Each structure stands twice: as structure tokens, then as C-alpha cells.
């Protein structure tokens, strides 16, 4: 027998030996449905519930996700905690400012204005202030409208008018964001150096800023510690609100769905904080204090006001330019 024949015989023998085994496995012994993938098992359903994405043809790939549960959490946070705590905090701040006004009253220039003007903010500084402030007012009003308008304004003015206002507000919000960013850059460049910690700040803090009792005026340079806090709040929170805002303006360019939801919550929560702080700033700059508001309108303040609130700054300014006070 040649070796090839032997090999052939062996192969046939092996084949015959293995045949019954194959036959037995299909002899009424159906593979279980789990093995054949016939049943949609619980793992598959769980994966779908947890956001498993599948294959989709002819449509954007992102639409392959079947269920997006994070939206529920986003909704709960926005309509729940954010709307309620944010709303209550804003009302709280307004009430606190009102109470402060009733108790402390308008802070007057003691002995009345001197009549002599001193330049506090030059034209560039005023432009920087109003780029930031003007755009912030628009952003705050239109932003709060998106958050609370449906519950506060829409029942009064009706759906059609409200929808038009919200639409216009959305565009104003989207465009003034860039003005706000420009304003942030300008005020940072102009004022950052005047907002660093100096030797008068501790005294100002210990005196409670002189807000607590009449006639108390701790010395301060160009900006006191309260203004410095406000400044860095605007820079830091403003930058965070701006960057999240820009990412919301370009949906899904910088973040995915979960990212967009988180950005929106950060944007809205920080914006509420900023509005609260700015309400205090607007109060003390206008109805809360005599002689303060002209600093950002005409740029000039009364020399008496300046010497009470920014004594060191007056001395420094007059030392540099003796005629500036005239």
C-alpha cells in the first residue's frame, strides 16, 4: 500500500467516525435561543436604555443613539434646582438690597459736594465699562427671560408677543456675548493692575468697607477691596460664562450632548450668581451712593467724594498732576 492510499483510508475512517457526532447535534437538539441570538436579552435592552448607539444609514451618525437619558437629568436640574434656587436667590438679593437701603439709606457725601471735579475714569476706561456693562444688561435680561419668562412674562403678555420677544432676545443674547467678551478684555487690560491686593485692603475689610456705619471711610487707592472683589468676580465668572456661552453658540462643535447639557447648566448657574453680584454693584453705583455714578458717565467725580472713598488715589493723582483737581 502506497502511503498516499493509506492517508486516504485514514481520512475516510476519521470522517466516518466524526459523522455520527455531527448528526447527533442536529438530531432534534435545537441550539438554545440565547446561543442563536434569537432572544433580545436583558443586556441588550439595558444597553439601549443606557444610551447604546447602533448603526444608522442615510442619517447623521449621532442619531444612532436610541435613548438619551441624560436629558432627563438636565431637565430636572434646569426646571428644578436651577430655576427654584436661582430664582429665590435673585429675589433674596433684591430684598436684601431693599432692606439695606431702608436701614442705611443713601450714602451721602458728608458736608456736601465740594463742587470741584476730578477725573476718575478716562474715555477708554468708560468705553471698557460700558462695553461690558451694556452687553451684560442685555445678556442678563434676555437670559433670565429664557429661564423665567415662560412663567412670569408669558402669562401676562400672551404667547405670540412673548415668542417674538424671546426670539429677538435670543439673537440679542447671541450677539452681545461677543461685545461682552471684548469688554472683558478691555477692562482686564486697563484695570487688572489696580485690582491687586494692596496695604489698604485689610483695613477696608476690618471696617466692613465703611458700609456699616455713617462717617466711616477706610482709606483706599483707585479701587477698594469691595470693588476688587467685584472686578475679579466679573473677570473669572465672566470668562467662564463667556466660554460656556461660545460653546453653546456652536452646538456639538466643542462638546457632545452631555457636554452641551453640562455647559448650559454651568452657564446658567454662574450667570445667576453674576447677576446677583452686579445688582449690588448697580445699587451702590446709583441710588445707594451720592456722587458715584458720574465716574462712568462723564468720567468726573466730586473731589470731596473721591477724598472720602478713595483718599489714597486722590493723593496719588494730585501728586502726579497737581492741576488735575482744577
Amino acid at each position: 500500500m502506497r502511503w498516499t492510499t493509506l492517508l486516504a483510508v485514514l481520512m475516510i475512517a476519521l470522517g466516518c467516525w466524526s459523522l455520527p457526532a455531527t448528526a447527533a447535534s442536529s438530531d432534534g437538539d435545537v441550539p438554545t435561543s440565547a446561543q442563536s441570538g434569537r432572544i433580545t436579552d436583558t443586556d441588550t435592552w439595558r444597553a439601549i436604555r443606557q444610551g447604546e448607539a447602533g448603526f444608522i444609514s442615510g442619517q447623521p451618525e449621532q442619531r444612532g443613539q436610541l435613548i438619551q437619558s441624560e436629558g432627563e437629568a438636565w431637565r430636572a436640574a434646569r426646571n428644578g434646582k436651577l430655576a427654584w434656587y436661582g430664582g429665590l436667590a435673585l429675589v433674596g438679593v433684591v430684598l436684601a438690597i431693599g432692606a439695606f437701603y431702608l436701614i442705611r439709606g443713601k450714602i451721602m457725601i458728608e458736608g456736601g459736594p465740594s463742587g470741584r471735579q476730578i477725573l476718575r475714569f478716562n474715555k477708554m476706561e468708560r468705553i471698557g465699562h460700558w462695553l461690558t456693562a451694556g452687553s451684560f444688561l442685555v445678556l442678563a435680561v434676555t437670559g433670565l427671560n429664557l429661564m423665567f419668562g415662560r412663567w412670569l412674562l408669558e402669562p401676562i403678555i400672551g404667547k405670540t408677543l412673548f415668542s417674538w420677544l424671546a426670539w429677538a432676545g435670543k439673537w440679542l443674547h447671541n450677539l452681545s456675548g461677543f461685545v461682552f467678551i471684548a469688554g472683558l478684555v478691555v477692562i482686564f487690560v486697563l484695570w487688572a493692575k489696580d485690582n491687586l491686593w494692596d496695604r489698604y485692603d485689610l483695613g477696608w475689610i476690618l471696617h466692613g468697607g465703611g458700609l456699616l456705619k455713617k462717617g466711616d471711610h477706610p482709606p483706599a487707592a483707585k479701587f477698594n477691596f469691595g470693588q476688587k472683589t467685584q472686578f475679579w468676580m466679573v473677570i473669572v465668572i465672566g470668562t467662564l460664562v463667556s466660554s460656556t456661552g461660545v460653546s453653546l453658540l456652536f452646538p456639538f462643535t466643542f462638546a457632545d450632548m452631555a457636554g452641551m447639557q453640562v455647559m448650559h447648566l454651568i452657564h446658567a448657574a454662574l450667570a445667576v450668581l453674576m447677576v446677583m453680584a452686579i445688582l449690588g454693584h448697580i445699587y451702590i453705583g446709583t441710588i445707594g451712593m451720592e456722587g458715584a455714578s458720574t465716574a462712568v458717565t462723564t468720567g468726573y467725580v466730586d473731589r470731596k467724594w473721591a477724598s472720602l472713598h478713595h483718599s489714597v488715589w486722590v493723593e496719588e493723582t494730585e501728586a502726579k498732576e497737581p492741576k488735575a483737581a482744577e
Partner: protein
Amino acid sequence: MARMKFLCDAERCIHCSGCVTACKNEHEVPWGINRRRVVTINDGKPGQRSLSVACMHCSDAPCMAVCPVDCFYQTNDGIVLHNKDLCIGCGYCFYACPFGAPQYPSTGNFGGRGKMDKCTFCAGGPEEDHSKAELEKYGRNRIAEGKLPLCAEMCATKALLAGDGDMVSTIYRERVMARGFGSGAAGWGHAYGKKG
């Protein structure tokens, strides 16, 4: 009162996309927008399943809850509809929706998404029934004609069911009993879990 629901039977869907095409043609949905989509999971592997998804017309609809202009409303049949004249295209409904149902005609930078579009359960919108305005903004109103959504009507394998929730459940339950496997109504927990 009937409560309208969709149900896609994963054991029957063959990913023919007939529902997508039927919807697009019936409502003359603009280019780039598909109110319905078919997704295949475990594609090419054991356990491959396809599901057809659109707006599920949720009981406690997240889109309705987050809309800043309150443009959504729910009909007595539980169908969630919206008013495109009020929509400002903010995209909030898309962030909230578990099913990715809301669609926008443009890409969305600078808030330029346009008016949101989504499945209407073939029930049109707030315009007068069968008016030109309704057709142009929302598509046809089959519900007003006493008909059910075309996607489900056209489904070749009757995987996609649409209609009264109780009826849909009954048909599905009988199917599951008869075949002895394949229960699990996709998305019902999210859409109708909170109430009826």
C-alpha cells in the same frame, strides 16, 4: 379616551426603512430632516436587532417641560404637538428629549437652527385641519381623517405599531405569548413610565 402610543417590535423589524420613507413622503419633510429613523444594534453580530424610533409622544414630555416659549401642547389623545410660529429654535427640546426626536432645518451656529420639526403622530399642528398652512408646516393630518400614522400602516412586517396604547399593548402581548420570546417594549419606560 384613547391614549396614542408607538411600539416597535425588535423581533420583527427588518431595517427596511419603509417607515422612514413613508413618513418623509407623506409629510413632504424638508431635505435633511427625518422624523423617523431606524437603528440597528449589534450590527452584523449575533443578537442583531433593529428598532424604528421617532417622537414617542411621552406622557410627561421633557420637550414640553423645558421649552422657554411653551410652544408644545398635548392633545386629548396624548399626542405631543408644537406650534412652529412660537418656536424660537433654541434647541432645548433636543437636549431634553430621550429619543432624539426634535430636528432642525439648519446646522445651528449662532442659534440659527430654524423652527423645530418632529413627528406629529400624523396629527398635523395647531393650524386648521387639512389647511395648506398645516400641510406646509406640519405635514398631513391623518388623525383628523380617522387614520393612524402612515409609518406603522406601511410597516411590511407589522413591527411598528401605532394607535391606542391599550390596543397596541394587547397585540404585542399576544405576540410575545404566541412566539414565547422577545418581550421588552423599547422606550416605553422613558416615554410612558411616569403615568399611563
